[in-house]
């Protein structure tokens, strides 16, 4: 019994000789017929009886998917998640999405064609094919045309295959031994790989440690990054109170923000909240509270906000009995005029928003001091 071999290669000098040999070798039915050539030979796929490449269909599907993805992505962003009106066009006007749809279609299709061909259809990269370590490979990528009979099972007869190829006109014959079937991932190999990765990590870690220790952090774009300007919340020696962010001049009235509650706090006690207690009003109140009140008064109004610790300020605990007994009007007055360290919020909040936040403060107070009846209402 001959030694087990993987395939037999027959070398041909011209493409014509190769093409003439293909039908003869195919009729021998000794194994799978494959050709190896330096460039694509026209008509060889029909001669070898290969099926049409499915790449066109794959690319078409992925291209269409690319177009749909791009359209959906742009529509969701521009019309739903972040609607902006540009040039007087409606948020959902799709005509402007066409250029990007086209580009994404091409992108998807290209990567499908390229990677699909290489990886899905040709199974590359693959460095273990026996032909790569054959003597004939030098000719394959240069100027020789090779016809191979490849083993389909254990019963491959390399002697008969060699004979068939020689009869078909091959000038040289090379028998390739069966590839080594021993497992690729031997324990030795795994250990060495892991050791290598570990060593690389150690080296990289040490390099980073010393690089950051020995070389100070360089700021190559210093002038573009640190510009002579005042950021919000930053201190400034330019102003008397040392604040970079100045309050509006006393008595400033923003457009649409009418001055209300101009008297004393006691006078404001009689004001009545004009807003109904609806879901929308509470939502507005909650938003305003989160944006403007929470840093000091805390998420539940207990006076423990995130700023308290940093500055040692003592904002009012809105849950205290004193404030729970306050009429709406007095809270409203404090929002409009400010109290103690608290600045006026009149320039930032509309009348609606101020009253909404009053409602919300009431809701917070009730939530923190809930009675049994409230629980019944809440769980009903």
């Amino acid at each position, binding site marked *: 019994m001959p030694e087990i071999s993987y395939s037999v290669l027959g070398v041909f000098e011209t493409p014509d000789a190769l093409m003439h040999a293909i039908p003869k070798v195919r009729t021998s039915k000794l194994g799978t017929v494959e050709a190896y050539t330096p460039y694509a*030979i026209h008509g060889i796929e029909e001669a070898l009886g290969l099926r049409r490449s499915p790449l066109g269909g794959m690319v078409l599907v992925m291209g269409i998917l690319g177009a749909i993805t791009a359209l959906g992505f742009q529509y969701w962003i521009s019309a739903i998640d972040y609607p902006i009106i540009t040039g007087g066009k409606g948020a959902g006007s799709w005509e402007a999405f066409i250029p990007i749809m086209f580009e994404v279609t*091409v992108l998807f299709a*290209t990567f499908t064609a390229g990677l699909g*061909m290489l990886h899905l259809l040709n199974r590359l990269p693959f460095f273990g094919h026996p032909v790569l370590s054959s003597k004939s490979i030098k000719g394959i990528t240069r100027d020789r045309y090779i016809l191979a009979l490849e083993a389909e099972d254990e019963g491959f007869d390399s002697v008969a295959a060699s004979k068939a190829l020689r009869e078909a006109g091959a000038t040289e014959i090379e028998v390739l031994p069966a590839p080594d079937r021993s497992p690729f991932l031997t324990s030795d190999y795994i250990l060495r790989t892991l050791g290598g990765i570990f060593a690389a990590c150690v080296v990289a870690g040490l390099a980073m440690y010393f690089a950051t220790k020995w070389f100070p952090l360089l700021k190559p774009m210093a002038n573009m990054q640190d510009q002579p300007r005042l950021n919000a919340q930053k201190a400034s020696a330019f102003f008397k109170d040392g604040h970079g962010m100045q309050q509006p001049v006393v008595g400033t009235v923003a457009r649409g923000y009418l001055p209300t509650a101009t008297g004393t706090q006691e006078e404001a006690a009689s004001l009545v909240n004009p807003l109904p207690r609806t879901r929308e009003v509470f939502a507005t109140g909650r938003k305003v509270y989160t944006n403007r009140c929470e840093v000091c008064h805390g998420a539940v109004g207990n006076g423990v906000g995130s700023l308290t610790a940093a500055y040692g300020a003592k904002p009012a605990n809105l849950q205290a009995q004193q404030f729970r007994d306050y009429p709406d009007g007095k809270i409203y007055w404090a929002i409009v005029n400010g109290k103690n360290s608290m600045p006026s919020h009149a320039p930032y909040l509309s009348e609606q928003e101020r009253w909404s936040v009053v409602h919300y403060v009431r809701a917070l107070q009730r939530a923190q001091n809930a009675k049994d009846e409230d629980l019944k209402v809440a769980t009903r």
Partner: protein
Amino acid sequence: MKLDAATSAGDIPEGLIEPSLYVGKVTPGSLDDQVLAFPETKPPRQWYFALAITLTAALIGVISIGYTFYLGIGAWGNTSPVFWAFDIINFVFWVGIGHAGTLISAILFLFRKRWRNAIARFAEAMTIFAVICAVIFPLIHVGRPWLAYWLFPYPNQRALWTNFRSPLLWDVFAVNTYFSVSAMFWYLGLIPDIASMRDRTTSKLRKIIYTVLAMGWRGAATHWQHYEKAYLLLAGLATGLVLSVHSVVSFDFATSVVPGWHMTIFPPYFVAGAIFAGFAMVVMVLVVVRETMQLKNLITMRHLDVMNKVILAMSCIMGYSYMMEGFTAWYSMNEYLHHAFMNIITGTYGWAGWVTISCNILIPQILWFKKARASYFWMILVAVGVTIGMWFERFVIIVISLHQDYLPSAWRIYKPTMVDFGVLLGTFGIFFTLVLLFARVLPVIATTEVKAILPDAQPSHHGDDHHA
């Protein structure tokens, strides 16, 4: 010139016989020995000399960009109302240069123009290098380059998205797609050639590098079948890109309301200009390549002749476009447009307008003469002229239109600074450095594609007996 075996036979009238695509005898083996052995030889002294020059230019560019980063955009001449100047001119210029490569590799492939095979590789490489040079400019022009990733639509803490109705964002997608597709196209084409280099090299290090890069390509018929299909599909896809990328770039201008920019002719006019400038650059580089790399038998005078014809055709399209600009200015009876156009030929920057017109329209007309198309002197003169002319064309479009628009009180003369010129010089340095490196380390001619069009490369009975 020797005639192709395939075309010399039969009774074709002499004038219609397609001249050979190469000179002398070329066989697959001799082709490999000529082209693929090149990276294994030691570079000549002139190569180091050229590299020193291009690296110096690149270094000047890096210093200029570093200074821009240090000081800010104020290092440039950009100032109100000319907020777009050298940066965008250079961006459009370099993206345009790339278009010749894509045209040669994609459109001419679809048209089965076999002469493209010998020059496609180099042209594709130039495409990639040109796009690399181009993307530098938007990145440094954003002012805060460390935030350049804001150009991409990604979910972020600020809950902001990019504006998909802005042509600048279309540009981001177009240029990125263009680069990815060009790189993919180029690399796929390289794989069989790298496999050839892998199998012929004797150096151990090269063998390892080429083995990895060739991905185990073994030239199987089953692989070639998919490969050819993929190449055809990529050519079709890249064809769309040749037409779309510079159209999208032109939208940056055309969708605005600045007089001189707001014109429907811009997309085709930009695409033609891009191919025009790109071919000029390819001719310039190929003349040097064929002379210094002893490739006269593969890159023949016929190749240069055909490319010069393309340049001439594009020059005529450019002439038509310039005339249409003038016609539109006159026929629209729009005084702003009229003023913008008159600025091009008589304004402060009128000289730039005339440089554009002479370099792009007048000088290339010499290529009507066969002798000029066969003369290095004339073709280099035209190619250099076109490169200068096309740069100035973008200068004319951008600076002249911007420096005097609707509001006369805002009019101002724009003056570039040395830093502007430094960055421009730097991109030329980067481009030619990459070209020089490429010429030394990778096959400059797609040997696989040229092998496929040699005589007797394809079976003679092709098309007869295997369609049963």
